[in-house]
């Protein structure tokens, strides 16, 4: 909810605090409330209820879609951000029970003690716009329970703190909680008082998430539950610091590319995107970027991508720090070169594509592919310039003869014909008169009703040869009495060899 409000604030849509707001997700019977703000909670809206019911309760409820995947990604980033307090942090759970777990063993004295550290964490999070419920305990389970059901900024003093917490603090599933409720076990202390043998027999076959005994052991520390913090994604960056500000980075580019290539090789990665950034002495930052068609760490190739584009960088009064960074990488394993010598053809082709797109722009280069369509201009589609062609799901229709060249868009011609449905006897194209000597056709191509606008006319294609020997692909759009406009129009659409 607070992340959503931050995004709204960044977009300039400041929402008043007294406006009831809810984020929704899809439930089995329509959207349900995923998160809500304080005004909505005071108005009686509850989490997990259907939106239509809550609208009846609170007619002024504002609703937007939740983004659980974005929340999860933000939580992962925040786990890395939280490494400022201790080296072992991990994002815990997802959805309603999401949280961060920090193993602060041995690092709390650096922040002035446990209580001061908790206050500091809460203050830092509040500057980010998040509220947090914090707790400090020797085990993951105890901290989880205290954070959700304990007092504000709870710090574990002894097992007696835990005994008063409800059994919901044991991280159990809903069915197990209901069962414990029916057994009359309301608090953790009640559960701990039950003889261990009976509990073990009752929940012998339950998995960890539904086993109150194992969860209790985790909370008290009898069962170890270590953190497994994920590594931060490595940053591939090469840097040159200069003693004096310079204006032209050309001479440093090969060394930077070689350095970055070595770093990428050490990580078995290849760059797909590159940023060359210069930090100017007046504090400004200027950057040019390049992209590759296939993952690459070849220093000469990477240097080529910037070769003619260094003028685009604005040096100002000079810069003294240059970085070359690969923000997007892909795994690229070492491959054996051919024993017989010679170049790998796909590699050479992808490098050619990079050179052409760097110089002339990505829009200039295309690799046409085929598409299952009878309409000529739709039978071609653009594929990425490198890589295998995507498979065609429906088989290609068996077209008639198709021209070598296609005019896009088709050019209108003036036509003389003997019979309205027949081929033209003579046509004027680009102010020149062509007399038809032979023709083939018509080939009728109907509009694709599932994507064409209503009222699109059918086309009758003719292959005609004029007296000079040139072979054209003409079509008549529509029929005389099809009721979709006036007289049919004629177009030249292509040329045969």
């Amino acid at each position: 909810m607070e992340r959503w409000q931050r995004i709204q604030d960044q977009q300039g849509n400041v929402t008043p605090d007294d406006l009831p707001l809810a984020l929704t997700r899809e439930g089995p019977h329509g959207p349900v409330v995923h998160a809500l703000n304080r005004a909505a909670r005071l108005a009686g809206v509850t989490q997990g209820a259907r939106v239509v019911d809550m609208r009846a309760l609170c007619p002024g409820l504002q609703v937007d879609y939740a983004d659980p995947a974005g929340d999860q990604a933000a939580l992962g980033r925040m786990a890395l951000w939280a490494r400022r307090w201790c080296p072992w942090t991990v994002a815990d759970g997802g959805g309603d029970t999401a949280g961060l777990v920090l193993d602060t063993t041995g690092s709390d004295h650096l922040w002035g003690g446990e209580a001061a550290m908790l206050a500091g964490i809460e203050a830092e999070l509040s500057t980010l716009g998040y509220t947090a419920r914090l707790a400090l305990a020797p085990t993951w389970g105890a901290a989880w329970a205290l954070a959700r059901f304990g007092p504000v900024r709870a710090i574990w003093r002894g097992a007696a703190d835990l005994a008063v917490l409800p059994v919901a603090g044991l991280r159990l599933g809903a069915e197990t909680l209901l069962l414990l409720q029916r057994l009359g076990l309301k608090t953790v202390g009640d559960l701990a008082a039950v003889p261990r043998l009976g509990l073990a027999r009752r929940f012998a076959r339950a998995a960890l998430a539904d086993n109150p005994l194992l969860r209790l052991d985790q909370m008290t520390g009898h069962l170890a539950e270590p953190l497994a913090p994920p590594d931060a994604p490595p940053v591939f960056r090469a840097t040159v610091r200069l003693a004096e500000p310079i204006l032209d980075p050309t001479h440093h580019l090969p060394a930077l590319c070689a350095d970055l290539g070595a770093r990428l090789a050490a990580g078995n990665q290849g760059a797909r995107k590159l940023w060359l950034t210069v930090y100017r002495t007046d504090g400004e930052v200027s950057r040019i970027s390049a992209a590759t068609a296939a993952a690459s760490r070849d220093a000469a190739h990477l240097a080529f991508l910037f070769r003619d584009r260094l003028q685009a960088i604005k040096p100002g009064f000079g810069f003294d720090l240059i970085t070359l960074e690969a923000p997007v990488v892909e795994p690229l394993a070492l491959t054996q070169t051919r024993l017989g010598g010679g170049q790998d053809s796909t590699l050479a082709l992808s490098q050619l594509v990079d050179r052409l797109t760097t110089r002339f722009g990505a829009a200039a280069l295309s690799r046409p592919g085929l598409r299952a369509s009878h309409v000529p201009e739709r039978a071609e589609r653009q594929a990425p310039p490198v890589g295998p062609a995507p498979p065609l799901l429906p088989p290609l229709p068996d077209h008639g003869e198709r021209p070598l060249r296609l005019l896009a868009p088709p050019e209108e011609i003036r036509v003389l014909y003997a019979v309205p449905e027949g081929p033209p006897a003579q046509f004027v194209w680009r102010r020149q008169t062509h007399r038809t000597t032979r023709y083939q056709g018509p080939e009728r191509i109907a509009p694709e009703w599932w994507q064409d606008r209503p009222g699109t006319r059918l086309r009758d294609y003719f292959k005609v040869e004029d007296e000079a020997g040139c072979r054209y692909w003409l079509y008549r759009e529509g029929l005389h009495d099809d009721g979709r406009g006036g007289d049919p129009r004629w177009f030249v659409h292509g040329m045969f060899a």
Partner: protein
Amino acid sequence: MTRIVAFPKTGRPDAPQAAGRVGLPAAASLTEVFAGAAGDAAAAGFVLAQLGRAGGPVLWIQDQLSRRETGQPYLPGLRAQGLGAGRLLLLTLTRPADVLVAAEEGLGCAALAGVVAEIWGDPSALCFTATKRLALRAEAQGVPCWLIRHGATADLSAARDRWRIRSLPAARHPDDPRAPGDPCWGLELFRSRDKVPGRWQARHDRAADRIDLAATVPDGTLAADTGPAGQCHAG
């Protein structure tokens, strides 16, 4: 009178040695093709017939004027010529100078089966030096380069072979007498480094993928040699 002249691929002993082999040059080099009017796709068809069956992708570069005036290569039509899906890299550029730069880049890549550059008119960038660079690059890397020129005059050029290609009325259609059949082209090799220039009437036999040639001028020395219809395989 029209005579049939034979240019077999493997070199028949009685074939005219001087005429050499028409078609794909023995060594990859720069070949210049002067096309006819804007609606005449014979030059593109001739180039495609040479390139189509050779494996590997083809880089096809057009300047904006050629694209607007003569259309762009159309893959469903090229497929019948053997240039299947995924083998065509199409590059459209505004300036003719860029076309030459891109062609030079493409000739540096040995993975290509060929580079085709289309240029409209006589731009100043396309000088003797530019064609010489293309020819040397093509020969060094072994990638054939075809320069299709629309609406151009045959000025100074370093191309090893220079052709002028026009459409001719097509051959008879086997099934339909009113329809055009296999395409026919008028070929004129007006300058060549290792072949004897000449004029031919070519018929592109699409089913067999070969180009049948017939000389358009009578040739007395060949009158006695009335062998079977000669042919030159396109790919």
